[in-house]
């Protein structure tokens, strides 16, 4: 099936005017599959880290949300061991007016503002609530070991 105009246009724009701290490059053999990197936001435990993600645009995109997963290990209450992300706009609150660019921005913001009250990784969220300083310290350590090469 031919690639919809929308995906071509989004890809062109992502490459021509990239969002600061975010890159998304499509695979040459599958233009619906993107290699994404997100830089940890400043003043967050993930600052200085570069996180790799994979992004796949399903057949009926933009009527269904893109599938996104962290490939780099990250200590975050809304991201689980397998890299799956708990973000409303990736699930029930998806809208076809959203795009790759806005979704990646949302993920970057999620890194800067963890939400332990709506957890995906329960153990992390528990720790985050009980001893936030220690949790942030662990997040920093994980960032140093996994997201800085």
């Amino acid at each position, binding site marked *: 099936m031919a690639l*919809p*105009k*929308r995906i071509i246009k*989004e890809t062109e724009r992502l490459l021509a005017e990239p969002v600061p701290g975010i890159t998304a490059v499509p695979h040459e053999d599958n233009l619906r599959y993107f290699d994404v990197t997100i830089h940890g936001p400043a003043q967050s435990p993930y600052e200085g880290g570069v996180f790799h993600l994979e992004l796949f645009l399903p057949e009926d995109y933009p*009527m*269904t949300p893109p599938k996104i997963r962290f490939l780099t290990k990250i200590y975050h209450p809304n991201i689980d061991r397998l890299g799956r992300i708990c973000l409303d706009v990736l699930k029930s609150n998806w*809208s*076809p*007016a959203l795009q790759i660019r806005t979704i990646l921005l949302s993920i970057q913001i999620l890194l800067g503002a963890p939400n332990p009250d709506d957890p995906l990784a329960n153990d992390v969220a528990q720790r985050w609530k009980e001893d936030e300083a220690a949790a942030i310290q662990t997040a920093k350590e994980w960032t140093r070991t996994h997201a800085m090469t």
Partner: protein
Amino acid sequence: MKLDQFLAMDVGSEDDRFLDLRALEYISDYDDHLMCPICHCPFIRPVRLECDHVFCQTCLNSAIRSFATGRDGFTCPTCRTPTRDVYLNVPRLLTNMCDEIPVRCPFSSEGCKEVVPRGHIQSHADKYCGYKLMDCPSASCDLRTRKKDLSPEDKCMHELHKCLRCDEDIMEQDYERHVQELCPSLKTTCPDCQVTVFRKALREHIEACPEAIHPCSASKYGCPVKMKRAELGTHEQSCPLITIGPYFEAQNSRLDSMELTVRHLQQRNEIFEDGLASIRSTLVESSRAFSAHNSSNTPTTDTNDTLDTPSEINRRSTPRSTTTEDSTTPLSNATTYLLSLHESLREEVAQLSHAITDLDARASMAIMNECLRLKEDMAHTNAAVNSVRMQVQWLMNPRLHQGQRAAGADTSTGAQSGSAGRTGAGAGPSSTGLLRLRRLSDTGREGTKL
């Protein structure tokens, strides 16, 4: 209009008669505000929601189909305002702006160079574009042909015809162009000599054309002359650069061989440098090993050395150096042996300097002791002198008083005091001067009194 009514409307996008406007190539960048948030193309038949957000009709249709089900209501994809109505009337301005965006004719791959506003592309394709592909009028042929190539008699243009000149099979629709422009057997004129040659022979002709402009064969040595091939021969006979050419060649070959030797030498140099570096590294390694070996030995010897006299040190250090030699001889390497020798010598020197400082300290200690003793003696004598002085004074005092009283009573008793002074002088010979002085002063005072 309610949502279900809107969904029931004929979208008409599947109709083959209409061009797919989203697939068109847009020549210029268009404003983001003219872009449907769902398909990212300029709005195509835009419709509006209650919240004034605009979408293409087809895009909104599929969005409603995907998102209205399973939820209590449909919300605007942009602002999430719950929506029940769709309005088909959008400002004329918006549709005009979208229709004004220039697009390339969809048949550009067939050769159409037209760029028209999007609002006109449908009529261009339908009526004016000669490159639109049409089905072949012949029922038996399933090829397509360009609209402009269609024959008025509705006959199939895909029959093959043999070109009379080049024996190639050409379709009828391409025949005219082939004959006029492409056929390799067509004649053409050389741009330089105006001779008419076959098109396929033109390349060979240009290689040999006497009128073609060619550079002098000495151009690689800097001859700037460029002239027709026919006249080049006369130039080359007189060209000084051509006569000097062989010399240049020889120089060039010499330079090449020089470069080769230089490269060869460089390689050898590199090999030598590598060898040097490896030697140096082994030296450093062995010295480190040796120093480690030494550091395990030195602490015990140091404690002994502090008590040794220099002669003893000399005697001790000689056997020591031999032992160090013994320990290094297993390291068969000559350099390591030299190094160990050097190390042992250095150690001897260190021991000597240690002994010298030790002696120095001892000598200064002895001097200090002697000084202290002398100081003590002096203090003793001082104290003795002081006590003698005190005694003399004590002895002298009564006599002095006596003398004064006698002087106050009678001057003739002065002789008595004088004899008393003489006995006092006998007691302490050191204080006689003082006593005499006092007496003198006493007599002097008596004198003034008198």
